[in-house]
């Protein structure tokens, strides 16, 4: 029980860190694009909302594995 709990904590924590950094990079690039060319804000937001889920997929798998490990 103790070892599994530590494993779950490490998995969930690393997934949160990885997801936060990945999404931060995507949103930062989108913001830079919008500040350079405000008129293409709509298409950039569409691409951002496609990119965020793609980045988030692997952290979500890590979270699901953490759920599966829970006793």
């Amino acid at each position, binding site marked *: 029980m103790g070892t599994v709990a530590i494993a779950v904590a490490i998995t969930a924590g690393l997934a949160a860190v990885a997801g936060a950094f990945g999404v931060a990079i995507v949103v930062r690039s989108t913001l830079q694009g919008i500040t350079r060319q405000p008129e293409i804000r*709509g*298409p950039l937001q*569409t691409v951002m*909302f*496609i990119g*965020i*889920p*793609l980045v*988030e*997929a692997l952290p*979500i*798998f890590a*979270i*699901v594995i953490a*759920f599966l490990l*829970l006793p």
Partner: protein
Amino acid sequence: MDSEFLKVDLFGIPWMTLNVPTMIMSTVAMVIVFFVTFFMSRKIQMYPTGAQNALEYLVQFIKNVISSTMEWKQGKNFVMLGITLILYVFVANMLGVPFELATADHEVWWNSPTSNPVLTISLALFVILLTHYYGWKMRGPKEYGKDYFRPVFFLAPFKVVEDFSNTLTLGMRLYANIYAKEVIMVMLVGLGASGAFWAFGAFIPLVVFQAFSVFIGTLQAFIFTMLTMVYMSHKVSEEH
């Protein structure tokens, strides 16, 4: 986890297990979506008021989502699909937000049906199958088959893997978000029930987290519809 679901084996076959609360909750979501849209669209007028305005705003929103991913010539077929998906996923996500019913021995009877991986992955599977069907129907079998070898021929295995991973991520994303929301809400309620002092301490975080889960549920419904249209445009669009 602590929560248990009532499970019934269909016809007594061991591997044909039905999750009864999830079936009830998904039926509730369907009934809500059907009756809300049914009664919102009864009195159609030239100059819309009230409910009809809201519905037309939704239709316009879905049209914008579709036209941002593909040509309107193909995209006009998928307006109803988008509205159905976004309403169903939204209502299903919202069902577990205000309260959650469970018996004393942690048998859950009222929660978000999307917190069950089987439901979300089967939803994603049918969406992916639908994209293949429309790709075949709109562009013909030859173009559909050639699409697997499109940029260069040795990418064909990756294209096959992409179909599976799209199904998995589309379903898992919805499931993991909603399930994490439910787990955190059950933990906060359990904390509040453990004593008078903690009941005050857990009340404000619970309200804040409910507001946050409304946001998550709306965003996930939007992302599910958006990605459906993106995958659809990969199969349906003429050129890449």
